[in-house]
């Protein structure tokens, strides 16, 4: 049985529909991210699961217990889940110890148990020795750890994260990502994580739910979403791919497709068999890092001579704008021996890396 199950969830405020017909499951111990641009309904979904927001239709069950349905709304304090907030929400009038102990005291657990459990939770998040500090005396990262300790100490059935790292500075955010993932794997807590940062979602999740305008766009492992985007939105939002409008020229038996973009022909694959067509319009999706520079005498499929327009240095790679018969292509090439602007170079794009998408 899924630990969390959302069926046909719908949330609307008057005429504004924030979440539309959303269904998904999260299995025991799984780490799932809700990913999408701001305003896509991901936080609303999370808050519905937490019980902080009322849904208009649909069912939510946690650990097999129905918590939200038409006419039924279990209040958040009765759902036996916990949440880490974007603003940390560390209570300023309580010490770190009291913050973490709060949920246990609410359940009237004996004080020896509280001592032990709070101690363990603080150790887990690396805050031993801070128990008697006050929330306002801690840095952002430390407050985030307090919030995390407070959320795991009650052993909730489900952990919710509402963009917990977005208030941290870049360096700390990177570190906390790894720590969070490591912690989640160690504790094996079923987690639902909301973020608008695709690299965060890719790094941390077992599975990503990509949302747009209140609807689920695509669901799958990070690898799946990256390699096999099912729509223009997915391809652009995750990894910011080059996308061209093309037309299907011919389809070979081994699923290879030949598409025409303007004056050029390029070979690729349909990533989703059900999207396969024999003719008509198609979106051709090419990741910037799939473009490889080859020797000017190389031969084979998907070879193009392009003119280098601009070269931007990014450290490990250079980001180049390449001109190919009226089509502009972004490419990440190795920073060692970069091409010069104005130069004409030969590039190759592996047909396996050219994804064809037909949108309904």
């Amino acid at each position: 049985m899924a630990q969390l199950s959302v069926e046909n969830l719908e949330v609307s405020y008057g005429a504004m529909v924030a979440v539309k017909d959303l269904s998904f499951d999260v299995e025991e111990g799984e780490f799932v991210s809700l990913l999408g641009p701001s305003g896509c309904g991901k936080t609303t979904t999370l808050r519905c699961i937490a019980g902080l927001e009322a849904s208009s239709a649909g069912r939510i069950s946690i650990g097999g217990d129905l918590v939200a349905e038409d006419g039924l709304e279990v209040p958040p304090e009765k759902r036996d889940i916990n949440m880490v907030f974007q603003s940390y929400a560390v209570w300023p009038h309580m010490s770190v110890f009291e913050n973490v102990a709060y949920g246990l005291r609410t359940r009237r657990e004996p004080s020896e148990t509280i001592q032990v459990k709070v101690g363990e939770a603080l150790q887990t998040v690396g805050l031993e020795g801070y128990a008697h500090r006050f929330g306002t005396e801690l840095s952002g990262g430390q407050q985030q750890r307090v919030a995390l300790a407070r959320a795991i100490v009650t052993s909730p059935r489900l952990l919710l994260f509402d963009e917990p790292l977005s208030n941290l500075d870049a360096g700390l955010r990177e570190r906390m990502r790894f720590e969070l993932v490591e912690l989640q794997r160690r504790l094996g807590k079923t987690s639902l994580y909301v973020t608008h940062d695709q690299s965060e979602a890719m790094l941390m999740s077992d599975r990503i739910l990509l949302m747009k305008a209140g609807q689920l766009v695509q669901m799958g492992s990070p690898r799946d979403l990256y390699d096999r985007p099912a729509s223009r939105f997915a391809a652009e939002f995750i990894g910011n791919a080059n996308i061209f409008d093309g037309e299907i020229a011919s389809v070979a038996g081994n699923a290879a497709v030949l598409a025409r973009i303007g004056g050029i022909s390029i070979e690729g694959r349909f990533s989703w068999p059900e999207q396969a067509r024999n003719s008509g319009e198609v979106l051709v999706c090419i990741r910037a890092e799939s473009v490889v520079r080859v020797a000017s005498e190389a031969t084979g499929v998907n070879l193009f001579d392009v003119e280098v327009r601009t070269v931007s240095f990014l450290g490990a790679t250079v980001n180049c704008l390449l001109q190919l018969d009226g089509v502009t292509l972004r490419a990440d090439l190795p920073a060692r021996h970069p091409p010069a602007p104005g130069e004409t170079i030969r590039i190759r794009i592996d047909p396996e890396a050219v994804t064809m998408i037909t949108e309904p």
Partner: protein
Amino acid sequence: MSTIVQAAAQSGPRTGFAPLRRRRRGFVLPIVLGLILTILVLVPILLMFIGAVRSGTFVDPHSTFSLRSLQAVYTTWPYLRTLGITVGASLLVSLLACVVGIALAWLIARTDIPAKGLMENSVIAPLYLSPFVGALAWLILASPRAGLLNVLAHQFFGATGPIINVTTSTGVILIMVLYNVPYAYMTVSAALRGMDPSMEEASYLSGAGVVRTALKITFPVVRPAIVSAFFFVFVLTCGTFSIPAALGGTQALPFMAVDIYHATATYPIDYSRAASIGTMLFWISLIGVAFYRFASQVATRFVTVTARGYRMRFVKLRGLRVVSVGLIAAYVVLAIILPYLALFYVAFTSFTSSSIAAASWTLDNFKAVAGSVAVSQSIVNTLIIAVIAPTLCIMFAVWIAYAIRRLKVRGGGILDYITMFPIAVPGIVFGTGIFWTYLMTPAYGTIWILIIAFVASYVPFAYRMIDTSLIQIDKSLEEASALCGASHWRTAWQVTFRLIRPGVLSAWILIFIFSVREISAAILLSSASNKVLSVMSWDYLEFGNVQNAAIIGLLQTAILVLGILAGRYVLRIKLSQNG
């Protein structure tokens, strides 16, 4: 409006405007401002202290140095008893007002109570009305013999003797609570709104219910605001003249402010005694304000990171909804509806009928009173003061705030402190000081002495509100104007003053309200030629003419309401957080 009660709480980062700062760091401006502030604010207080050790006024050639009044006031029983009662009653009033204010603030900010905007405006509304008129109305409603409620009880239920009596200490305290609830409400409600909602959500998710969350998280987090509301109401109540005076003065509940008035108005007139009591009241207020400032500073320490404004999850009241709405409705009925019904009844009926239901309605009384020369003169006085006092006050406050905040004049800290000083001085104490200061000048006995007194008393409120507006303007807006080549004056005129316009307008309206309803300083400084409506109403009440007092109370209320409506709908000033 929330800025009134938070006045002393704000102390934002001091943002400098470098180009201006370099050019304008002379001595002339701070000295001029310092001199004006000294004359306006410090001299009256100083002269009150000197007056307390004189045997007579400054114009009296026989007056000498004497500790007689000071000794009497600070060491003898009746005065110490009054001191004890004033402080004790004020503490009780603050406590009760805070309890009610917190409950109302929580209901409106945190539950699914219907019509929140209307509810909030209803709770704040008594603030715009004169507490003196409210007390007068309650006297009409619930004085032991002629009180309308008692008469009604007698007529319909055959009650013998008064069922309710406001001319007792309990009555005075409860009426004071009634008119102080909005101050407590506004401070606590501003804090609740400013609080990060996820603080409470985190508590719910930790398994705590509504009650535990409110008691363990919500109220502790806003505790500094609650404490500062408590001391704000305390200081305000200590200096209250209107309510204890209207409800029977010293017999019901001796109050220091009433004693000051009696020292100057009833035989034997003793200005020195008035000054002495004034000094004592001054110390009490100063202590209260010290606590208030301390609490407000703690309050700013509690400010936390706030997430995007997510919709707050409101506590579902379910069956308690009716009870909650009833609670607010009861407050509005007691503070506004019942009192004004009583005033209308008394003003527009002839007193000859024996039964309330059979009373004949007439406009004669109203016409006679409103048409009399004395009353029309006091309407004119009130209107002149209500326009000039806020205008001067605001102009001065803008000047000070701009000089301190933007021009960064030398001694800005001291100027700020002196400007805020009158907040610690009750109106009646200030009136005493003004009296001693301007006794020998031509201003004495004219409306100008009232204008001076009001400008000095209210400049802290205007200054704080305008300063808050200035802080909220991003300094890069002004820097951009300077970099576009605008002169310093053009920048001030075209950018700064335009952006603080809403703050200036709401400060104007606030001080307009204060000036129209003010009674305690006005009564000390009144003469035949500078009577304002509040003093006129008081005079009639003292002569036992409740009907005329009520009519004038209604006239005064009409001016307040017209002013507020004009501000709200013509100038589009926001008077509360919900608009």
